[in-house]
């Protein structure tokens, strides 16, 4: 079964500095990977997705992510962090139910990003 891991519960970064939120995956075949952001008392918002093809994916709000097959990673990055980027970030992978051929999405445990002014 597919899975994702987010090894850091929290990441702190100073405003204006680059940020990285880590995600590693365990999949068979070509993965479809996603990043979502959750602000307090809100639902999850889609940021970006990787489908097999270009390894560097650009998404909303200046975020990007790099798919690295050799390291089985899909880290979320931003060149210059903003205080407003402070939120909970989830990595997710799409998995297939072999018996039915339908898809489900499996989420990581989340990483809390704090951007300090």
């Amino acid at each position, binding site marked *: 079964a597919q899975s994702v891991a987010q090894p850091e519960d929290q990441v702190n970064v100073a405003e204006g500095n680059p940020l990285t939120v880590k995600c590693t995956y365990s999949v068979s075949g070509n993965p479809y990977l996603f990043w*979502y952001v959750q602000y307090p008392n809100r*639902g999850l918002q889609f940021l970006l997705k990787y489908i097999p093809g270009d390894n560097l994916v650009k998404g909303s709000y200046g975020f990007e992510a790099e798919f690295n097959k050799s390291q089985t990673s899909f880290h979320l990055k931003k060149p210059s962090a903003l205080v407003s980027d402070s939120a909970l970030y*989830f990595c997710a992978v799409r998995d297939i139910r072999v018996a039915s051929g*339908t*898809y489900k999405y499996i989420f990581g445990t*989340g990483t809390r990003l704090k951007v300090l002014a």
Partner: protein
Amino acid sequence: EAGVAQSPRYKIIEKRQSVAFWCNPISGHATLYWYQQILGQGPKLLIQFQNNGVVDDSQLPKDRFSAERLKGVDSTLKIQPAKLEDSAVYLCASSPRQGGTGELFFGEGSRLTVL
């Protein structure tokens, strides 16, 4: 385009009481998901519908949880009787169709507190 609508946003009940959450997905979205998000954890799939049929309810505690999606549009998730450990945010999400490469669209969530 209107997003996924959920209600109520917040609910506080005593244990052993019942509660119902409602979700209206984005118009035309065939697939609807209910996730449970316990504080400090990632969302966990409870049930997935394709139109009005159940695709996966393997993690739904069927002795107390039930869900339906009549007419393949909006959906209701019910808990009866509630336990303390059901305190969580219940997220509804939808997607245009099964498979594809698309992302999920989430509602704002319904936060349940069981006392």
